[in-house]
């Protein structure tokens, strides 16, 4: 075997560094704001200072006269080129979000909503001019919090709405009443999750260029789903789809925040069309906080019924979720709340579930998706209630979980919330985790330290992660969000390969994973595979990056394309060599016969097929450009599973929490590249720790964001984060040939829950249980004070 041979044989599963990493560490990233275009204009928005107000008059005259100003635009100006839009979900007809336009039209419904766009030669000049715009406002009643939004007779968040209730949905599985009646133990707890926001390190950025002669709009966009945005821009700006190109260059973090069509970004595209000149908008951090989609704001009343053996019987959940002023376009804002119920107890055998979900509009930024959508809430509620039940039954938290995991081998089981599960490995993950963390030693440590007045806690959180979501999620809702991924694989005349994929990569490493898959399947050196993503002009139509789909679905499409391309190559080779296809092997770029003797290279085939096709003794030349699409059709998604653990120390006098250690055992099926997977999980864990300990959008009662700067909205920093140890189980999914499940959200699905159970375990001697995340020092102290018990032995 040649060296190349060995290399290609071990590609999938190998820790191959990402090709773009070498570029990024050299400062050669190519992010949207790095792009310069001749004659580029810059946009600054004047945003509503009020959470709810009527716009009586806008005077732009003084601003228009400022140096460098090209245009000062309002809703009416942009209405000439951009149609309003409305978020609608076919299956939830009561989810009525008002019409939206790029700039607030007559009424602003959240503090931060864009009202006037100033276009100038530089951003600084645009901001100077924005200060000269005068707007006459009439303040309207503001409804920032969910409770006041729900109050009978509450004024509407938007005058176009009858009331603020945007979702009221109930599900019942099994017989929850009977289960609660017959239970040996019933536990209940209230949970509250503060509003968060994604804080991508690169803010939202968009650069739009319109060529009026060609009628062509080109948008460079820091975004996750270029094909969706192409569709949206074309529809709203009334351009043919073919005349819109969306490019997503390097993207500095997305996390779901960059999946929506934002009004201010629509405004930028509209301005480009209106002025026929290139324009750029780069959100600054202060406006990010008040204009990026937020997420998570929810309260949950949870109850759990358990029998005397600790077997989970039923859960009863009442979820209230805050939508903000509009339902995010086009995917809606309901995911968080629905998932919070649907994913309840997903890793466990449980027959009965009752769930009620209500969502209210509020005078706050719209809430959208944020990594793991609703799943962290469901996991937190389930895991915390389980611990409370274990406590009552005097069972070890590990033991109660061990008794309840859903049958691992079962194909297509369903959780009580309707989650489709197959080929899981919860028990194996559990056992592996306890070893990895040395659970018993930590418990001993905890016990002995308690005597010394040191309060440590161990927290577990088993989880199911919905990955590789298919068309069954948005299709039935009539939301135009593609769920399939497509790969167009081309054998170039020199024998190299070009793989154009519909997936996008914001650093997850999907591009690398795809090249590994293609190189392996075709038996070629990975360096000969070029990959193209993130450009609607050069990549096939498809989903992009959402719901942990890149490697699982994009990878499957790539694998299928590679298989067919290999067939083509071998067919041509066989005809040239006068051999049977089955007698040939393709490896290391070389085609060999049964005896293992090299006959020709893939480059020979490419050259012959490209330039001397007349020499190929076949009636028809097999295609050397293959396009394959994949979306799971039988399954709505491919569930992955795992378990996480946190070890924490709580200072009961200061209320501070230190995370001492963190462990994850994850099963994402076939691991294509452990290097990519591990840090993905860790990044997700850190975001979950952030949610549990730090992150909150703090609103005043009158609807002003009070901590809207990076100094005041706390995100996790290196100093406070623990080392995070990862291990894998590999249970390939049979839903695809590739066998990979997603992993992008795994860390976030369970990390906050592990923090909840760990912190509450540490607080157990005080009889205190946290109810509101994040766990600020004051909240910890308040819970201890409320419990009122001096620390006692357990």
């Amino acid at each position, binding site marked *: 075997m040649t060296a190349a041979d060995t290399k290609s044989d071990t590609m999938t599963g190998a820790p191959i560094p990402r090709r773009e990493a070498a570029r990024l560490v050299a400062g050669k990233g190519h992010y949207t704001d790095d792009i310069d275009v001749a004659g580029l204009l810059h946009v600054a928005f004047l945003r509503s200072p009020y959470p709810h107000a009527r716009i009586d008059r806008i005077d732009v005259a003084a601003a228009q006269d400022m140096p460098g100003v090209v245009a000062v635009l309002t809703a009416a100006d942009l209405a000439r080129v951009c149609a309003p839009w409305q978020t609608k979900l076919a299956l939830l007809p009561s989810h009525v979000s008002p019409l939206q336009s790029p700039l607030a039209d007559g009424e602003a419904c959240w503090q931060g909503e864009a009202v006037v766009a100033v276009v100038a030669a*530089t*951003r*600084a000049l645009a901001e100077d001019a924005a200060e000269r715009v005068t707007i006459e406002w009439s303040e309207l009643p503001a409804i920032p919090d969910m409770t006041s939004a729900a109050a009978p007779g509450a004024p509407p968040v938007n005058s176009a709405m009858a009331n603020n209730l945007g979702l009221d949905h109930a599900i019942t599985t099994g017989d929850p009443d009977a289960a609660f009646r017959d239970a040996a133990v019933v536990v209940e707890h209230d949970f509250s999750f503060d509003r968060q926001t994604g804080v991508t390190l690169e803010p939202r950025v968009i650069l739009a260029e319109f060529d009026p002669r060609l009628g062509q709009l080109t948008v460079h966009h820091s975004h996750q789903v270029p094909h969706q945005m192409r569709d949206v821009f074309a529809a709203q700006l009334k351009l043919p789809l073919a005349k819109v190109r969306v490019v997503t260059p390097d993207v500095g973090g997305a996390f779901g925040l960059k999946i929506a069509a934002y009004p201010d970004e629509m405004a930028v595209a509209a301005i480009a069309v209106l002025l026929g000149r290139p324009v750029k908008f780069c959100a600054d951090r202060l406006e990010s906080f008040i204009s990026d989609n937020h997420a998570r704001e929810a309260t949950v009343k949870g109850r759990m019924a358990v029998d005397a053996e600790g077997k989970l019987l039923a859960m009863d959940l009442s979820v209230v979720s805050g939508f903000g002023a509009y339902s995010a376009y086009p995917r809606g804002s309901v995911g968080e709340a629905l998932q919070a119920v649907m994913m309840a107890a997903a890793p466990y055998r449980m027959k009965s579930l009752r769930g009620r979900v209500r969502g209210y509009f509020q005078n706050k930024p719209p809430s959208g998706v944020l990594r793991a959508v609703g799943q962290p809430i469901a996991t937190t509620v389930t895991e915390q209630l389980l611990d409370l039940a274990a406590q009552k039954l005097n069972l070890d938290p590990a033991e109660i979980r061990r008794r309840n995991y859903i049958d691992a081998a079962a194909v297509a089981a369903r959780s009580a919330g309707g989650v489709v599960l197959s080929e899981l490995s919860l028990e194996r993950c559990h056992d592996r985790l306890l070893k990895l963390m040395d659970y018993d030693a930590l418990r001993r440590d905890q016990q002995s330290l308690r005597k010394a007045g040191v309060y440590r806690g161990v927290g577990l959180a088993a989880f199911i992660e919905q990955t590789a979501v298919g068309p069954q999620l948005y299709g039935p809702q009539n939301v135009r969000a593609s769920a399939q991924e497509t790969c167009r694989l081309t054998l170039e005349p020199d024998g190299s390969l070009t793989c154009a994929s519909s997936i996008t990569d914001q650093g997850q490493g999907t591009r690398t994973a795809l090249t590994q898959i293609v190189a392996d399947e075709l038996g070629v050196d990975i360096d000969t595979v070029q990959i193209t993503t993130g450009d609607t002009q050069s990549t096939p139509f498809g989903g992009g990056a959402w719901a942990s789909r890149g490697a699982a679905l994009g990878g499957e499409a790539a694998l299928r394309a590679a298989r067919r391309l290999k067939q083509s190559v071998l067919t041509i080779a066989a005809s040239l060599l006068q051999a049977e296809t089955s007698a040939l092997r393709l490896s290391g770029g070389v085609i060999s016969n049964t005896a293992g003797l090299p006959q020709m290279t893939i480059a020979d085939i490419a050259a012959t097929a490209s330039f001397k096709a007349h020499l190929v003794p076949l009636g028809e030349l097999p295609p050397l450009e293959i396009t394959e699409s994949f979306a799971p059709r039988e399954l709505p998604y491919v569930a992955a599973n795992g378990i996480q653990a946190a070890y924490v120390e709580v200072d009961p*006098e200061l*209320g501070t929490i230190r995370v001492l250690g963190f462990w994850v055992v994850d099963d994402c099926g076939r691991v294509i590249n452990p290097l990519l997977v591990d840090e993905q999980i860790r990044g997700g864990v850190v975001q979950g720790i952030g949610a549990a300990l730090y992150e909150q959008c703090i609103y005043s009662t009158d609807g002003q964001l009070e901590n809207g700067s990076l100094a*005041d909205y*706390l995100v996790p920093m290196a100093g406070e984060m623990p080392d995070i140890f990862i291990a894998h189980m590999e249970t390939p999914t049979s839903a695809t040939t590739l066998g990979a499940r997603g992993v992008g959200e795994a860390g976030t699905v369970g990390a906050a829950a592990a923090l909840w159970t760990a912190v509450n375990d540490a607080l157990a001697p005080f009889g205190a249980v946290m109810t509101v995340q994040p766990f600020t*020092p*004051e909240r910890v102290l*308040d819970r201890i004070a409320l419990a009122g018990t001096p620390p006692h032995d357990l």
Partner: protein
Amino acid sequence: MKAPIFIYKRPASLDEALALLVDNDGGTQVLAGGQSLLATLNMRLSSPAILVDINRITVLQGIEARDDGIRLGALVRHREVLTSPLVARDVPLLAMALPYVAHMAVRNRGTTCGSLALADPSAEMPAVAVALNARIVLEKKGARRSVTARDFFQGLYQTARDDDEMITEVIFPKADADEAFGFTELSRRHGDFATVGLAIRARKAGGALNDLDVIIFGSEPCPLHSPAAAGISIASNASDKDLTEIAATITADMEPMDNHQGRGETKRAQAATLLRRTLKDMQQRALALEAAQP
């Protein structure tokens, strides 16, 4: 956001700089490390007409030992103080506090005097200056005065400095052999401004602590020099209970502010815990030092 328009001046001498500050009611501002000022400019939270960049004025540089103490010029950066052997030896409290100030890159540029001038209620340097009663030297065209730190800080972002004055240096008294110091703070993440913090100086006799100066900051509009602490002596054999009582007496002086870091009363309780622990730690260090002496 981008900074609004201003006039930029970079005088080469102190006289020139002071001349630029004459007759000014806040529209002209000194630019030292810029680690606070430029951030507020970038947010358009302030819009000075003129910035006087003092970074070229060499007489403002340097850490020096003088008869009356250790002098830090207005251009001495946090990093210089943190790594100065002179400071570590003669002003140990300053050295103890600096690791709590921001992060490496900010410390490389931000100045001690800038921090004093800004008088952020959660900043460490003002608290240390008050604990040691440092002398802050204020100069304006044709006049120079020095104000003790205890008179300098007057309220939330309020100091004794007039708009036409510049802090040219600060002088910290050298520690005596029998002095003991303690510094601690509670912050959400390391390097963040303090929710509540303490800077303590005392005279030690064995494990006993006398002549206490306890400064509580972060929770108060400006560093609070506890009046109650002045009359307290802590015996070598003080029990946890004694220390708890002492901490309660001292923190009763606080008038803590409510904010996102917590209610005032929460901070009072946190301060009491920090105080009890820090006093104990100071006692233990004093005893350990004594035991180590031949």
